[in-house]
């Protein structure tokens, strides 16, 4: 029980956010109407992606100082799972944009920034494939990962704030918090976000353990 309480918590939080997200009260607003419920699913994807990329960069730094292959496995699996959440975030966002902004891909700095950020992490995976030797691969890709992380932050979180964006909270648009007067949406959004983050970390640990076993099999002397 000690080890998997957070997995139970993740499932419960997700159930809560899905049920409350689809049935709970939301403010009636023009244009967005009921699609505002998408905020419970779209925003947590980005929180999860960001958490996983942060875990990845922390473990890349750890790898550089320890040269322990396990740290490298955590870093690469975090990026793998983070990219999946990034794609989910883009898909939910495109669905939403199609309803409210009229097109699945309007020319918005945040959209373009996250697409380019994804390219950067795909490049990280390509770089890993280009290197044969395991230790060299782990070290060089860790270096690229650390190098790319601050640029990803600039792309996704700093540049969209300075230019005009369709997203709330940027370019003179009012932030999301102003629509949510009584805090009932926050009560669903934040638990849901924690639930998704825990799910993301769970999937990452599963993939990490698989990779660790494969590594043990490969290196074991017959």
């Amino acid at each position, binding site marked *: 029980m000690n080890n998997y309480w957070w997995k139970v918590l993740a499932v419960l939080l997700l159930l809560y956010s899905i049920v409350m997200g689809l049935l709970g009260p939301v403010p009636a607003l023009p244009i967005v109407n009921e699609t505002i419920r998408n905020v419970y699913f779209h925003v947590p994807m980005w929180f999860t992606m960001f958490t996983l990329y942060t875990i990845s960069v922390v473990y890349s730094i750890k790898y*550089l100082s320890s040269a322990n292959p396990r740290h490298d496995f955590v870093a690469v699996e975090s990026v793998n799972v983070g990219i999946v959440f990034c794609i989910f975030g883009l898909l939910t966002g495109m669905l939403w944009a199609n309803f409210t902004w009229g097109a699945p891909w309007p020319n918005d700095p945040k959209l373009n*920034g996250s697409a*380019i*950020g994804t*390219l*950067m992490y795909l*490049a990280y995976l*390509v*770089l890993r494939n*280009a*290197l044969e030797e395991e230790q*060299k691969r782990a*070290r*060089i890709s*860790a*270096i*690229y990962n*650390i*190098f*790319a992380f*601050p*640029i990803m932050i*600039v*792309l996704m979180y*700093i*540049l969209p704030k*300075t*230019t005009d964006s369709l997203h709330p909270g940027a370019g003179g648009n009012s932030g999301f918090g102003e629509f949510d007067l009584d805090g009932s949406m926050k009560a669903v959004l934040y638990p849901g976000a924690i639930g998704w983050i825990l799910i993301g970390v769970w999937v990452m640990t599963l993939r990490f353990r698989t990779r660790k076993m494969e590594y043990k099999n490969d290196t074991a002397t017959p």
Partner: protein
Amino acid sequence: MQTLNAVRSLIRKDIILEWRSKYAINGIVLYVVSTVFVCYQAFKSVDPTTWNALFWIILLFASINAINKSFVQESRGRQLYYYTIASARAVILSKIIYNMLVMLLLSSIAYLVYSIIFHNPLGDPLLYMVVVALGAIGFAAVFTMVAAISAKAGNNSTLMAILSFPIIIPMLLVLIQVSKNAMDGVERSTSYDELIVLGAINIITVAISLLLFPYLWRD
């Protein structure tokens, strides 16, 4: 102090090596001039937005080609020798500064040729030149580290492009925006935010390069 001396003599060595052969710099200058000319032949006359974007694209490819070579032109044995006489930080710092000098020269030549062949009025030439200089320095800072990484990974030019394009895009977006402001002759105070972002990206990339390169060079 010792590092500074090492950096200075390494930069001198790079400049002397380049001066002896004049191969890389001439090749790149020829590359820039012919690209500008091809663009001129293809477009004849363009509107200001395209003029600006085209200039940055030419500069982007020229700088990738110029900096791509910076870690492979010297043999492994000679690089080992540098690492025994100077710290890894001095090596990367000297490469970054040398590439910045090359890029400044290259971008000023590109700008001259481009503005002579493709005539286009500029609203605020001084600000435009400052932006070009900042862009050249920024390209050098980012691409030097990426060139070091791709040199370790067998140095194919595809890898260099894949690794560097996503990383350079934020800087390129800011550069195109500020230089457009300079072209239109907008009030300078509107561009201060972007200039600060540019400076910050430059400082961050140089700092991270200094931190990470010591891990990169050993095999």
